C-alpha cells in the first residue's frame, strides 16, 4: 500500500474491527459465564428439592429411599433436568429415562460443576452433589443456551459487517480530514516554479502541524524567490554595466576603421573586432531582456488586434527568408481572430522560431506555419522537416544557454545568439500568460513548436511581489 492515505484508512478499519471483535468475544465470555452461573444455581435448587419432597427434617435416608425419591423428582422434571446417581466406586445406580442411552461422565474430581457432552442429549451442564456415599448428578441440557449463543454470533457477525462499512466510511473521511491540507500543500508546491515563485501555500490561522509545515515551506519559498530575483538583478545590472565600456571600444575601433590609414590586414582585424562587439551587444541585450522579464520589469504594449494580420505581415518577411534558404514556406491556416498581445514581441517570437526552423531544415525542405484558435486561446505552430530533437532535450531547449543541436558550427551559434532565442520566446509568452512547447513530428522527422496565448488577456496581474517592484531595479 503506497499512499499514506490508504494506509491510514486500512489501519483505522483494522483497529476498529479488532476492537469490535474483542468486545464481542468478551461479551460472549461474560454472557456464557452468567448463564452457567444461573444454570448451576437452578441445578442446585433442583437437587435441594429432592430431600425436601420427603420430609425436611430427616437427612438419613437409605440408599433405596433416596434413589426412589430421585426417580420421582426425575419424572416430575423430566422436561428440564437429567438425573444420574453413582455409587462411591463409580457404578451407575440410577439414570433418568430422558437421558436415553446416554451416560453422564463423572465430574473431574474437585470440580462440582462442568459442561460436558452427553450422548443422545448433546451438551449439558452438570452439577454434582454428594449425598452420603452417593454422588448425585443433576444436569441441564444446553440446547436453549446454544440457540441463544447462535443468535448472539449471528447478531455479532451482522454488527461486525455494519461496523466494517461504517469504519471504512469514517476511515476515508478521516483520511481526507488529515491529508487534505497536505494535498493542498503538495498541489501548490508543484505549481510553484521559476515562473511563479510568488505563489504561496494557503496557510490557515490554525496552529497545528500542517499549518506549521505550510508556513515553513512558505518561508523557504520566500528565500528562494529572493535569491532568484537577486540572481536576475545581478544579471541585469552586470549586462548593463558592460555597455558603456563596450561603447568606448566600439567607438575606438570605428574611428580606426574610418580614418582609412590602416593596412588591409589591420582593417580585417578591426572589422572582426566590430563584428564581435556587435555579437556581444546582442547577447547582452538578450540577457538583459530575460533578466527584466524574470523580475517583471517589462511593460507590455498590449493591444487587442487581429492575430491574422500579424501572421500575414510576418509571412511577408518569412517568405523572403525561406526563399533565401531554399526552403518552402506553407501557411497551412491562418484564422482571423482578435487577440490581445504586444505585436513587436510576438513578431520576435515568430522570427526566432522561424530562424530556428530554417537553420535545421535542409534545402528543399518545408516549413509549415499555422494559426488557429482553441478554447478561446490563439494557437500558432511552426513545423519543419529537419531532424527533430532527441526526446530528452525537447523540454530543455527553452532554457537559457541551451543550444539546439550541440554539433553546430560557431557561425550558427553566433546567429543563435548564444542559445537565448528560445528562452526569450518562452519569457515573452509567459508575459502574455501563454505557453510554448516543442515536440517531434509524428510521423517525423521534424520538429513542431506550438505556442498559445489567451485571446482575451486581462490587465496584467503582478507577477512579482511588491518588494521587488518597489526597489529601483535598473540604476543607469
Amino acid at each position, binding site marked *: 500500500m503506497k499512499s499514506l492515505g490508504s494506509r491510514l484508512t486500512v489501519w483505522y478499519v483494522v483497529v476498529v474491527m479488532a476492537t469490535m471483535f474483542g468486545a464481542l468475544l468478551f461479551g460472549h465470555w461474560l454472557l456464557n459465564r452468567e448463564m452457567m452461573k444461573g444454570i448451576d444455581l437452578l441445578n442446585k435448587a433442583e437437587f435441594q428439592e429432592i430431600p425436601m419432597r420427603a420430609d425436611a427434617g430427616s437427612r438419613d435416608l437409605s440408599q433405596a429411599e433416596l434413589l426412589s425419591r430421585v426417580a420421582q423428582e426425575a419424572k416430575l422434571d423430566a422436561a428440564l433436568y437429567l438425573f444420574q446417581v453413582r455409587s462411591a466406586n463409580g457404578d451407575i445406580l440410577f439414570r433418568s429415562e430422558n437421558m436415553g442411552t446416554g451416560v453422564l461422565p463423572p465430574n473431574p474430581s474437585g470440580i462440582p460443576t462442568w459442561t460436558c457432552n452427553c450422548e443422545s442429549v448433546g451438551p449439558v451442564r452438570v452439577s454434582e452433589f454428594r449425598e452420603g456415599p452417593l454422588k448425585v448428578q443433576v444436569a441441564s441440557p444446553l440446547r436453549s443456551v446454544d440457540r441463544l449463543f447462535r443468535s448472539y454470533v449471528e447478531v455479532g457477525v451482522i454488527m461486525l459487517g455494519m461496523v466494517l462499512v461504517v469504519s471504512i466510511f469514517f476511515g476515508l473521511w478521516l483520511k481526507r480530514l488529515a491529508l487534505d491540507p497536505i494535498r493542498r500543500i503538495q498541489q501548490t508546491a508543484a505549481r510553484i516554479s521559476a515562473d511563479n515563485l510568488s505563489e504561496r501555500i494557503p496557510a490557515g490561522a490554525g496552529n497545528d502541524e500542517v499549518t506549521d509545515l505550510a508556513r515553513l515551506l512558505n518561508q523557504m519559498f520566500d528565500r528562494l524567490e529572493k535569491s532568484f530575483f537577486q540572481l536576475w538583478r545581478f544579471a541585469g545590472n552586470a549586462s*548593463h*554595466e558592460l*555597455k*558603456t565600456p*563596450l*561603447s*568606448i*571600444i*566600439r*567607438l575606438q*575601433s*570605428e*574611428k580606426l*576603421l*574610418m580614418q582609412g590609414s590602416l593596412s588591409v590586414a589591420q582593417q580585417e582585424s*578591426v*572589422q*572582426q*573586432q*566590430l*563584428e564581435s*562587439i*556587435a555579437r556581444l*551587444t*546582442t547577447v547582452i*541585450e538578450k540577457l*538583459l*531582456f530575460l533578466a*527584466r522579464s524574470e523580475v517583471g*520589469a*517589462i*511593460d507590455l*504594449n498590449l493591444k487587442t488586434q487581429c492575430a491574422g494580420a500579424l501572421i500575414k505581415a510576418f509571412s*511577408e*518577411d518569412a517568405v*523572403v*527568408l525561406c526563399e*533565401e534558404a531554399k526552403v518552402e514556406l506553407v501557411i497551412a491556416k491562418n484564422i482571423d481572430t482578435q487577440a490581445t498581445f504586444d505585436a*513587436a514581441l510576438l*513578431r*520576435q517570437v515568430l*522570427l*526566432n522560431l*522561424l*530562424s530556428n526552423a530554417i537553420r535545421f531544415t535542409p534545402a528543399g525542405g518545408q516549413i509549415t506555419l499555422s494559426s488557429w484558435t482553441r478554447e478561446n486561446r490563439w494557437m500558432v505552430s511552426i513545423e519543419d522537416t529537419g531532424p527533430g530533437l532527441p526526446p530528452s532535450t525537447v523540454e530543455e531547449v527553452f532554457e537559457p544557454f541551451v543550444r539546439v543541436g550541440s554539433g553546430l558550427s560557431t557561425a550558427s551559434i553566433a*546567429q543563435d*545568439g548564444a542559445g537565448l*532565442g528560445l528562452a526569450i520566446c518562452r519569457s515573452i509568452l509567459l508575459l502574455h500568460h501563454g505557453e510554448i512547447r516543442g515536440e517531434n513530428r509524428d510521423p517525423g522527422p521534424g520538429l513542431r513548436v506550438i505556442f498559445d496565448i489567451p485571446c482575451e488577456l486581462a490587465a496584467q496581474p503582478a507577477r512579482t511581489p511588491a518588494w521587488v517592484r518597489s526597489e529601483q531595479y*535598473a*540604476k*543607469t
Partner: protein
Amino acid sequence: MRILIVEDEQKVAQFIKRSLEEVDYSTKTVRTCAEAHDALADSPYDAIVLDLGLPDGEGLTVLKEWRANGFSEPVLILSARDAVHDRVKGLNLGADDYLAKPFSMEELLARVRSLLRRKLDKKATVFDHHGIRLDLVAHTATLGGHPVDLTGREFALLEVFMQNQGRVLTRSLITEKIWDSHDELDANLLDVYMRRLRIKLAASPDEQVFKTIRGVGYQMI
C-alpha cells in the same frame, strides 16, 4: 548649429564632441543634470544629446521638465539600458530619437543630422542617383528609365539609402527604420533584403550601388 552633450562618461563625451566638431557643429559637454540646466539657461542650443543615467538624476526626468517648460528643440537620448523598453518610454516623454549603447558614431551623426534636417527643411519626394529614380509620391522606382519591381520592404529600404546618399548607415539604424526594432538583425533579414536589392538595382555586374562596411553597416555609393 550648437549641440549640447549631456554625458557623464568622460571618454564617451569626448568622442561625441570630437566627431560632431569634425562635421562643423559647435558643441558643449556637461556631466550632470544641474550643469545641463545652467547651460540651457545661458545660451540656446539647436539640439541635445542626452544620456539617461546621470550622477545627480535621471535623464528622463530632466527631459520631462524641459518639455514641460516649453523647450522644443530636438533631443536624442543615449542609454545603456534596455533598448526596446526605454526607447518607447523616452519617445513618449518627448525625446525625438533614441540610441542604445554601444552605439556607432556614424549612427549618432546620422541621427543628429536627421533631427536637425527635420527641423530645417521639407523632405524631398523624388530622388535621383546613379540612374536610379525613386518617386515617393507615385511609389515607383526606375533603373535607367526601366521600372524596377520592388516589394514594400525593398522600396522602404531604398528610400532610406536614397535619403542618405554617400553616408554609412549602420545596421541598427536601417532595421529600426524598416522594422521598427533591432530583432531582425538576428535573422539576417537585412542581409537577405540587401542581396535582393543589389540584384534588382545592379546596372551591370561589376558596378555595385551598395558597399558593405563589415561590422558597421551599408553605404550607398
